[in-house]
Protein backbone atom coordinates (compact mmCIF):
# COMPACT_ATOMS: atom_id res chain seq x y z
CA UNK A 1 0.00 0.00 0.00
CA UNK A 2 2.94 2.31 0.53
CA UNK A 3 3.76 1.78 -3.12
CA UNK A 4 0.55 3.54 -4.10
CA UNK A 5 1.44 6.70 -2.27
CA UNK A 6 4.89 6.56 -3.84
CA UNK A 7 3.56 6.81 -7.35
CA UNK A 8 2.80 10.53 -7.12
CA UNK A 9 6.42 11.66 -6.76
CA UNK A 10 7.38 9.24 -9.50
CA UNK A 11 4.82 10.73 -11.84
CA UNK A 12 5.99 14.24 -11.00
CA UNK A 13 9.63 13.32 -11.52
CA UNK A 14 8.85 11.61 -14.80
CA UNK A 15 6.85 14.63 -15.95
CA UNK A 16 9.71 16.97 -15.16
CA UNK A 17 12.17 14.71 -16.92
CA UNK A 18 10.07 14.41 -20.02
CA UNK A 19 9.37 18.14 -20.15
CA UNK A 20 13.05 18.98 -19.76
CA UNK A 21 13.92 16.47 -22.47
CA UNK A 22 11.29 17.87 -24.81
CA UNK A 23 12.44 21.45 -24.21
CA UNK A 24 16.08 20.58 -24.75
CA UNK A 25 15.37 18.65 -27.93
CA UNK A 26 13.27 21.51 -29.31
CA UNK A 27 16.01 24.02 -28.54
CA UNK A 28 18.69 21.81 -30.07
CA UNK A 29 16.57 21.23 -33.14
CA UNK A 30 15.86 24.91 -33.58
CA UNK A 31 19.54 25.66 -33.14
CA UNK A 32 20.46 23.14 -35.81
CA UNK A 33 18.04 24.77 -38.24
CA UNK A 34 19.31 28.27 -37.47
CA UNK A 35 22.91 27.11 -37.89
CA UNK A 36 22.07 25.54 -41.27
CA UNK A 37 20.42 28.77 -42.39
CA UNK A 38 23.40 30.77 -41.15
CA UNK A 39 25.70 28.51 -43.17
CA UNK A 40 23.61 28.98 -46.30
CA UNK A 41 23.40 32.75 -45.81
CA UNK A 42 27.17 32.98 -45.29
CA UNK A 43 27.90 30.91 -48.41
CA UNK A 44 25.60 32.92 -50.63
CA UNK A 45 26.73 36.25 -49.15
CA UNK A 46 30.36 35.33 -49.74
CA UNK A 47 29.62 34.50 -53.36
CA UNK A 48 27.80 37.79 -53.80
CA UNK A 49 30.62 39.59 -52.04
CA UNK A 50 33.38 38.20 -54.24
CA UNK A 51 31.44 39.14 -57.36
CA UNK A 52 29.94 42.50 -56.41
CA UNK A 53 31.49 43.69 -53.19
CA UNK A 54 30.39 43.85 -49.61
CA UNK A 55 27.23 45.86 -50.29
CA UNK A 56 25.97 42.92 -52.34
CA UNK A 57 27.06 40.54 -49.60
CA UNK A 58 25.01 42.53 -47.10
CA UNK A 59 21.99 42.53 -49.39
CA UNK A 60 22.14 38.77 -49.84
CA UNK A 61 22.79 38.09 -46.17
CA UNK A 62 19.72 40.13 -45.26
CA UNK A 63 17.64 38.51 -47.98
CA UNK A 64 18.45 35.22 -46.29
CA UNK A 65 17.45 36.45 -42.86
CA UNK A 66 20.97 36.98 -41.57
CA UNK A 67 22.98 40.02 -40.59
CA UNK A 68 26.36 40.72 -42.10
CA UNK A 69 28.88 41.08 -39.30
CA UNK A 70 32.14 41.13 -41.19
CA UNK A 71 33.11 41.26 -44.82
CA UNK A 72 36.47 41.81 -46.38
CA UNK A 73 39.19 40.46 -48.59
CA UNK A 74 41.40 37.63 -47.46
CA UNK A 75 44.05 37.28 -50.10
CA UNK A 76 42.21 36.95 -53.38
CA UNK A 77 39.15 35.65 -51.59
CA UNK A 78 36.30 37.38 -49.85
CA UNK A 79 35.51 36.37 -46.33
CA UNK A 80 32.16 37.04 -44.71
CA UNK A 81 30.68 36.37 -41.32
CA UNK A 82 26.95 36.48 -40.66
CA UNK A 83 24.75 35.96 -37.65
CA UNK A 84 21.15 34.89 -37.40
CA UNK A 85 19.27 37.43 -35.31
CA UNK A 86 16.03 35.45 -35.15
CA UNK A 87 14.89 32.44 -33.21
CA UNK A 88 13.32 31.74 -29.87
CA UNK A 89 14.79 33.13 -26.69
CA UNK A 90 16.23 29.78 -25.61
CA UNK A 91 17.81 29.16 -29.00
CA UNK A 92 19.22 32.67 -29.18
CA UNK A 93 20.80 32.46 -25.75
CA UNK A 94 22.31 29.01 -26.12
CA UNK A 95 23.22 29.65 -29.74
CA UNK A 96 25.06 32.83 -28.97
CA UNK A 97 26.98 31.31 -26.12
CA UNK A 98 27.93 28.32 -28.27
CA UNK A 99 28.70 30.47 -31.29
CA UNK A 100 26.25 28.44 -33.32
CA UNK A 101 24.33 31.40 -34.67
CA UNK A 102 27.18 32.80 -36.70
CA UNK A 103 28.75 31.34 -39.76
CA UNK A 104 31.68 32.29 -41.92
CA UNK A 105 32.35 31.51 -45.53
CA UNK A 106 35.11 32.19 -47.96
CA UNK A 107 34.59 32.64 -51.68
CA UNK A 108 37.22 33.08 -54.33
CA UNK A 109 37.23 34.48 -57.83
CA UNK A 110 35.58 31.97 -60.16
CA UNK A 111 38.08 32.16 -62.99
CA UNK A 112 41.14 31.09 -61.05
CA UNK A 113 42.38 27.70 -62.19
CA UNK A 114 42.44 26.51 -58.64
CA UNK A 115 41.35 23.38 -56.85
CA UNK A 116 38.26 25.20 -55.73
CA UNK A 117 35.97 25.19 -58.75
CA UNK A 118 32.80 26.13 -56.97
CA UNK A 119 34.49 28.95 -55.15
CA UNK A 120 32.83 28.06 -51.86
CA UNK A 121 34.23 26.73 -48.68
CA UNK A 122 31.31 26.13 -46.40
CA UNK A 123 33.60 24.67 -43.74
CA UNK A 124 34.58 26.65 -40.70
CA UNK A 125 31.01 27.82 -40.61
CA UNK A 126 29.85 28.24 -37.08
CA UNK A 127 33.04 26.99 -35.50
CA UNK A 128 34.51 30.43 -35.35
CA UNK A 129 31.39 32.06 -34.01
CA UNK A 130 31.31 35.54 -32.58
Amino acid at each position, binding site marked *: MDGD*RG*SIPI*VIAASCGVLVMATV*SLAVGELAVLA*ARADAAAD*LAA*LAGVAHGCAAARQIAEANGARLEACGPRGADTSVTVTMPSGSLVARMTGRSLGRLSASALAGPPMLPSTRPSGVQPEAASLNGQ
Partner: protein
Amino acid sequence: MRAHRHGGERGQAIVELAFAVPALLSIMLLGMWGVTVARDSVVLAGQARDIARALARGEQGSPSDPSIRMQQSTDGSTVTVRLTREVDTPVLGGFALTLSQSATTLRESG
Protein backbone atom coordinates in the same frame (compact mmCIF):
# COMPACT_ATOMS: atom_id res chain seq x y z
CA MET B 1 -12.86 2.39 7.22
CA ARG B 2 -9.16 2.28 6.92
CA ALA B 3 -9.30 -0.40 4.27
CA HIS B 4 -11.79 1.70 2.39
CA ARG B 5 -9.50 4.70 2.36
CA HIS B 6 -6.61 2.63 1.12
CA GLY B 7 -8.78 1.37 -1.65
CA GLY B 8 -9.59 4.95 -2.63
CA GLU B 9 -5.93 5.91 -2.68
CA ARG B 10 -5.11 2.98 -4.81
CA GLY B 11 -7.82 3.87 -7.26
CA GLN B 12 -6.58 7.42 -7.34
CA ALA B 13 -3.07 6.28 -8.08
CA ILE B 14 -4.27 4.12 -10.92
CA VAL B 15 -6.30 6.98 -12.37
CA GLU B 16 -3.30 9.27 -12.09
CA LEU B 17 -1.15 6.79 -13.92
CA ALA B 18 -3.83 6.27 -16.52
CA PHE B 19 -3.64 9.97 -17.35
CA ALA B 20 0.04 10.53 -16.75
CA VAL B 21 1.53 7.70 -18.77
CA PRO B 22 -0.22 8.49 -22.07
CA ALA B 23 0.42 12.19 -21.57
CA LEU B 24 4.11 11.63 -20.96
CA LEU B 25 4.37 9.25 -23.88
CA SER B 26 2.67 11.82 -26.10
CA ILE B 27 5.10 14.52 -25.06
CA MET B 28 8.02 12.19 -25.68
CA LEU B 29 6.64 11.33 -29.08
CA LEU B 30 6.22 15.01 -29.92
CA GLY B 31 9.79 15.67 -28.82
CA MET B 32 11.13 12.92 -31.05
CA TRP B 33 8.97 14.20 -33.88
CA GLY B 34 10.42 17.67 -33.29
CA VAL B 35 13.87 16.27 -33.94
CA THR B 36 12.81 14.85 -37.29
CA VAL B 37 11.17 18.18 -38.14
CA ALA B 38 14.43 19.94 -37.36
CA ARG B 39 16.36 17.45 -39.45
CA ASP B 40 13.99 17.93 -42.39
CA SER B 41 14.30 21.70 -42.05
CA VAL B 42 18.09 21.48 -42.12
CA VAL B 43 17.86 19.39 -45.29
CA LEU B 44 15.45 21.90 -46.84
CA ALA B 45 17.73 24.83 -46.02
CA GLY B 46 20.75 23.12 -47.54
CA GLN B 47 18.89 22.12 -50.68
CA ALA B 48 17.38 25.59 -51.07
CA ARG B 49 20.89 27.02 -51.00
CA ASP B 50 22.22 24.51 -53.51
CA ILE B 51 19.30 24.92 -55.90
CA ALA B 52 19.41 28.72 -55.66
CA ARG B 53 23.09 28.56 -56.44
CA ALA B 54 22.53 26.28 -59.43
CA LEU B 55 19.74 28.48 -60.81
CA ALA B 56 21.87 31.59 -60.36
CA ARG B 57 24.49 29.98 -62.54
CA GLY B 58 21.88 29.18 -65.15
CA GLU B 59 21.83 25.49 -64.35
CA GLN B 60 18.92 23.30 -63.40
CA GLY B 61 18.08 22.22 -59.92
CA SER B 62 15.32 20.30 -58.26
CA PRO B 63 14.70 18.93 -54.79
CA SER B 64 15.85 15.44 -53.97
CA ASP B 65 12.48 14.23 -52.77
CA PRO B 66 9.16 14.39 -54.66
CA SER B 67 7.36 15.44 -51.48
CA ILE B 68 9.30 18.73 -51.49
CA ARG B 69 7.62 21.50 -53.43
CA MET B 70 9.71 24.21 -54.99
CA GLN B 71 8.81 27.79 -55.77
CA GLN B 72 11.29 30.02 -57.49
CA SER B 73 11.06 33.72 -58.04
CA THR B 74 13.30 36.25 -59.65
CA ASP B 75 13.49 39.81 -58.44
CA GLY B 76 15.80 42.01 -60.45
CA SER B 77 19.23 40.60 -59.84
CA THR B 78 18.32 37.96 -57.29
CA VAL B 79 16.92 34.45 -57.42
CA THR B 80 14.89 33.09 -54.52
CA VAL B 81 14.14 29.42 -54.06
CA ARG B 82 11.56 28.37 -51.51
CA LEU B 83 11.18 24.73 -50.61
CA THR B 84 8.18 23.53 -48.64
CA ARG B 85 7.26 20.16 -47.32
CA GLU B 86 4.30 19.00 -45.27
CA VAL B 87 4.82 16.69 -42.35
CA ASP B 88 2.13 15.02 -40.30
CA THR B 89 2.11 15.27 -36.57
CA PRO B 90 2.00 12.00 -34.67
CA VAL B 91 -0.19 12.84 -31.67
CA LEU B 92 -2.36 15.71 -32.81
CA GLY B 93 -4.25 13.56 -35.26
CA GLY B 94 -3.35 14.39 -38.82
CA PHE B 95 -2.66 18.05 -38.25
CA ALA B 96 -0.09 18.78 -40.95
CA LEU B 97 2.75 21.17 -40.40
CA THR B 98 4.29 22.94 -43.37
CA LEU B 99 8.03 23.33 -43.24
CA SER B 100 9.48 26.03 -45.41
CA GLN B 101 13.01 27.20 -46.08
CA SER B 102 14.19 29.65 -48.67
CA ALA B 103 17.45 30.91 -50.05
CA THR B 104 18.20 34.04 -52.04
CA THR B 105 21.26 34.61 -54.13
CA LEU B 106 22.53 36.96 -56.79
CA ARG B 107 22.15 35.91 -60.38
CA GLU B 108 25.38 35.62 -62.21
CA SER B 109 25.28 37.61 -65.40
CA GLY B 110 27.32 35.92 -68.07
